[in-house]
């Protein structure tokens, strides 16, 4: 399994499609426990990322990740802009210089992104944020021998569903305290789409 620069661009295109299709759903998740802008923010940012990626030729995956990161940073806004921006920037830095990414380097990249999210968001797992998806996904990647794209989708979806049961202690949802229980975290849902898109890209190569 080798992901080249054009596969990485494809990843962002697929993620953009999913986010666009689910824009109102993401926003509706953000309404009861946030400010109802998550879908709008993500759709604006991912469209910009794809526009920029398609306008350029890339030879290295890390360059794609870096440009995507910059687009997200400057277009998403809110809390998720700097968070996703940081995640993809850290991923880019961790795989810099590689011509293609295999499962091992993807694992290194996802782990670096997770660490970046924790540091930027000053948060840990279990606080009802996108970290609750990135963390089990990073763990799933850490064992390349048993990796399968279906397993990636399942890991991300299960983790996203599980945020329903937790109480938010970070982000806007934390103002709702106990009342945040019973709702899926919007950032976890958008992260789930991103990993579903990655699984599709990997799946074509399995």
């Amino acid at each position: 399994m080798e992901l080249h620069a054009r596969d990485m661009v494809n990843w962002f295109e697929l993620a953009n499609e999913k986010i666009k299709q689910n824009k109102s759903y993401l926003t509706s998740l953000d309404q009861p426990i946030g400010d109802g802008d998550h879908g709008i923010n993500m759709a604006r940012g991912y469209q910009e990322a794809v526009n920029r990626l398609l306008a350029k030729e890339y030879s290295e995956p890390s360059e794609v990740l870096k440009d995507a990161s910059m687009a997200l940073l400057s277009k998403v806004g809110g809390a998720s802009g700097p968070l996703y921006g940081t995640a993809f920037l850290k991923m880019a830095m961790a795989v810099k210089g590689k011509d293609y990414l295999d499962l091992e380097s993807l694992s290194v990249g996802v782990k670096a992104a997770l660490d970046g999210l924790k540091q930027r968001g000053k948060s840990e797992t279990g606080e009802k944020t996108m970290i609750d998806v990135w963390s089990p996904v990073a763990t799933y990647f850490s064992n390349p021998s048993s990796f399968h794209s279906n397993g990636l989708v399942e890991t991300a979806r299960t983790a996203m569903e599980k945020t329903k049961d937790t109480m938010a202690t970070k982000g806007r949802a934390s103002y709702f305290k106990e009342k945040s229980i019973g709702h899926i975290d919007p950032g976890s849902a958008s992260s789930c789409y991103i990993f579903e898109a990655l699984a599709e890209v990997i799946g074509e190569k399995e």
Partner: protein
Amino acid sequence: MKKIINDPNQVVQDMVDGLVAAFPETLKQVPDTFVVARADSAVTGKVALVSGGGSGHEPAHAGYIGKGMLDAAVCGEVFTSPTPDQVFEAIKAVDSGEGVFLVIKNYTGDVLNFEMAAELAEAEGIKVANVIVNDDVAVEDSSFTTGRRGIAGTVFVHKIAGAKAEVGGTLDEVKGVAEKVVANVRSMGMALTPCTVPAAGEPSFTLAENEMEIGMGIHGEPGINRGSIASADEIADTLMGKILEDYDFSGEVAVLVNGLGSTPEMELYILNKKVQDILADRGIKVYKTFVGEYMTSLEMAGCSVSLLKLDDELKELLNAESLAPAFRM
């Protein structure tokens, strides 16, 4: 949705254009950004102040740009914090070499975007410092969670830190006095009606004709409780009760009675009467009172009350000259 706009997706752009056109001699727009800055920036020899956040809280924050207050304000999309590149542009536009002080309201989005901008600025050799304002007593104060939101009390931070910078305070001194304001200011708000974000087209929540929400945030985030509409005196009692319970204000204070967008000044004065009575009953002396729209929430009806405990330093800085259109003194 009934609004005086052209295109719901262009409101920030159009507002910034109109604002700068209203004050051409004192304000300028940093090209290709939603950053508004003092026309004479960067001001030589002075620490510069940058604030900002989502739009929809006018006159916050661009109305506070002017001699004695802010040097620049970054206008995000409506209720969405501005991105790091925009904040970075603001920092670059106002830095005179003395450093740039960032006033950040405590929302995860604002904190993260401003922090990233600060990192970009530091990488270019610009000195930056910040303060995080968290005056809303409606939210529990906790170091394990996101903690309290920043609301109307932020205006006092702009005024006092801005005055300190104007009289030649260093970046450390400006930070010091800003932190003192944050430590001594508390606010709480309530809402009677929701507001509609133009791009959303519909109100973010609903309140029945006979309902009000106490402790509502400035983006329509939930409050402490929803109840039947009460009298101005009862509302003042509730808001002041919570504020006074949270911090010992004995001594002298400044009072800010703030309208959220569509509450008539008449009602704000009615509320203020009771606020003053409550303070008098407690033996707390009022040094200065501000009544009006300082930090709104689009067309929401409702108000907030802020108290700032003063010492001699804060009094002097609060009284200093300000040429900001929304806070002339």
